[in-house]
């Protein structure tokens, strides 16, 4: 057995967009910080370039997790230092102002998402993570053709802003950036926090939060080996607070396993999406250019269209059929383009710990509404039209029951001719939210305006689960910005409390009993 014991002012569970940002801010303020991460710390040079190896190393459960029910929706997540930022495309969007205002007015988060304060946080993050618009020289054929298609249909698109100013356009973000150009958390805020004195324990899975007299005092869980077998017990004491930042799926599971109930896990939201593939006579060269470089935001229609260059394994599987026709298309992967639609769905789901399975496994219920599915159809049809407008010879809409190969723009009507159930699309979701939503009202929110769990002292949630709703834009920047604000305010509060007790007892909050709706003991 190799047990692990440690102690710090702040114990942070998870090193993704939320956890790493919290560690960066709190360690900069001079607090001792321990980061606990279930996945491994990856060495860039050792990250496999083939998708099978990359998935085995960095994806949570090989990307096979999905929602429950008759039409499972795959949920793509990472399990490694850096969380999903270690495999994402680096797209950066500030929190849209109408969403900010809604959170402020309806959720009582005015101070947390105060316009000026949040804007300063975004400015700081954008400077540190080298945010720039993707230069035209890095668009590659995939994004260039998408721009051509959008323009032909009169849609307004733009270069995607990313945290990768030194991007070389290798289209390998999913396997990890080979030159560390993309400023994912594993190469930015996690090492920065370590330089500022934080400690990182990777392969350290937290199973529950420990309480003493209504106050979170630490966490316990398991130390894992490379095969994720348990090789020891984990016990880390938090002198000031535990910050759960394990993602919109895992954070509510940890809180549930810790005895917390109420709205925890009750309001899971997402931006599910699907892709359309097209074949062009001219070469496209999807493997050349930034993974994602061009986007058409359609916020009023609750959707966003993006170019997305994926590894050949995924594109090959997405081409229709089997046998000679498939092989003919497979032999011309350099002529294939792929664009996706992500929908800001109105559906609200639920997350719980799974009944059986290893620690931390979740059961997610989520069913898109009819209106959501109409938007998916509208997005797919728009992408098909854009493909033809850009010059595609064949378009593969990827909807069961619809002709798998469209050869003429008039055939897009087949997509629109009727409604298609979710199970007819190849959808997936990687933008997940709101399972421990923030808000002033404990009846409808799991955490308060400072992201502290209602009714518990010394326990915070700072990740995608704490955002009160989905956004309609790519989420990592909003997660980092909101976390930055909350962590900064926590650091200030802790500092002022600490100076009041001049070097004596390090407790900041008086112990109060847990509220009756928390079963924690």
């Amino acid at each position, binding site marked *: 057995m190799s047990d692990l014991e440690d102690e710090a002012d702040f114990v942070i569970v998870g090193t993704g967009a939320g956890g790493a940002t919290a560690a960066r801010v709190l360690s900069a303020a001079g607090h001792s910080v321990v980061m606990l991460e279930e996945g491994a710390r990856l060495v860039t040079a050792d990250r496999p370039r083939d998708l099978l190896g990359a998935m085995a190393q960095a994806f949570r459960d090989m990307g096979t997790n999905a929602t429950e029910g008759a039409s499972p929706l795959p949920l793509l997540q990472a399990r490694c230092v850096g969380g999903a930022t270690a495999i994402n495309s680096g797209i950066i969007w500030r929190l849209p102002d109408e969403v900010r205002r809604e959170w402020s007015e309806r959720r009582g988060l005015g101070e947390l998402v105060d316009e000026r304060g949040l804007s300063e946080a975004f400015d700081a993050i954008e400077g540190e993570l080298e945010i720039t618009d993707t230069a*035209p020289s890095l668009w590659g054929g995939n994004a*260039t053709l998408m721009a051509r298609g959008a323009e032909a249909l009169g849609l307004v698109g733009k270069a995607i802003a990313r945290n990768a100013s030194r991007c070389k356009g290798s289209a390998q973000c999913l396997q990890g950036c080979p030159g560390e150009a993309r400023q994912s958390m594993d190469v930015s805020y996690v090492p920065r926090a370590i330089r500022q004195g934080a400690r990182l324990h990777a392969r350290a899975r937290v199973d529950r939060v420990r309480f003493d007299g209504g106050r979170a005092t630490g966490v316990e869980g398991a130390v894992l080996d490379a095969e994720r077998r348990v090789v020891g017990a984990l016990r880390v004491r938090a002198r000031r607070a535990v910050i759960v930042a394990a993602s919109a799926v895992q954070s509510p599971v940890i809180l549930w396993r810790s005895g917390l109930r109420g709205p925890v896990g009750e309001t899971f939201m997402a931006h599910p999406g699907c892709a359309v593939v097209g074949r062009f006579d001219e070469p496209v060269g999807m493997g050349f250019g930034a993974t994602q470089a061009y986007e058409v935001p359609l916020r009023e229609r609750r959707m966003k269209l993006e170019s997305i260059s994926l590894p050949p394994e995924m594109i090959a599987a997405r081409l229709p059929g089997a046998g*000679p026709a498939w092989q003919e298309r497979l032999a011309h992967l350099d002529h294939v383009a792929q664009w996706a639609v992500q929908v800001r769905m109105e559906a609200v789901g639920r997350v719980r710990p799974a009944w059986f399975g290893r620690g931390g496994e979740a059961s997610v219920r989520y069913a898109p509404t009819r209106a959501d599915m109409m938007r998916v159809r509208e997005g797919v049809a728009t992408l098909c039209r854009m493909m033809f407008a850009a010059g595609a010879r064949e378009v593969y809409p990827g909807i069961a029951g619809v002709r798998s190969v469209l050869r003429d723009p008039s055939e897009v009507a087949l997509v629109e001719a009727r409604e298609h159930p979710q199970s007819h699309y190849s959808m997936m979701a990687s933008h997940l939210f709101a399972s421990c939503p923030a808000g002033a009202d404990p009846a409808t929110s799991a955490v308060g305006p400072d992201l502290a769990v209602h009714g518990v002292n010394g326990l915070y949630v700072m990740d995608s689960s704490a955002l009160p709703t989905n956004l309609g834009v790519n989420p990592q920047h909003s997660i980092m910005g909101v976390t930055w604000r909350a962590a900064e305010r926590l650091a200030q509060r802790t500092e002022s409390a600490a100076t009041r007790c001049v070097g004596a007892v390090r407790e900041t909050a008086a112990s109060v009993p847990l509220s009756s709706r928390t079963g924690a003991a």
Partner: protein
Amino acid sequence: MAFTDFERRWIVAIMSAFTTPEGELTVADGEADYVYAAEVMAAGSRLKARVGLRVAVWVVALAPAWALGRAQTLDELPAAGRTELIARLLDHRAYLVRGLATLLKLTATLAMMRSPAVRARSGYDRAADARSPSTRRALPLVTSQGVMT
């Protein structure tokens, strides 16, 4: 969850049947390690997905019986018959069948593209040689700084 010997045989029979020797992009015997890909998928997945992968292998391997009414397993069909049947399963009206066949197709492509030779034949990495420069030059580019031409 190790696959049994006959399951391994089925995996090879199923996954090699996505391609035929007559097709444009061929995969020679031994060029793609399908069993390895299936084992890596299973080892890294949750119990539910591991069971799903095994169910997929069984459902497709036994498809000649339930889909064609023949007392055979897929590996006992002639090569062309295997490919034809798999293509039908990929388009099956039952979501479960379609989904399981697609899972095996993805596993097959994960194995195929691990082979540098197969990947090279796909053209994915074919040099970009300043692709479609005319297209690129003709486009006004809208960025957050404004329109660039």
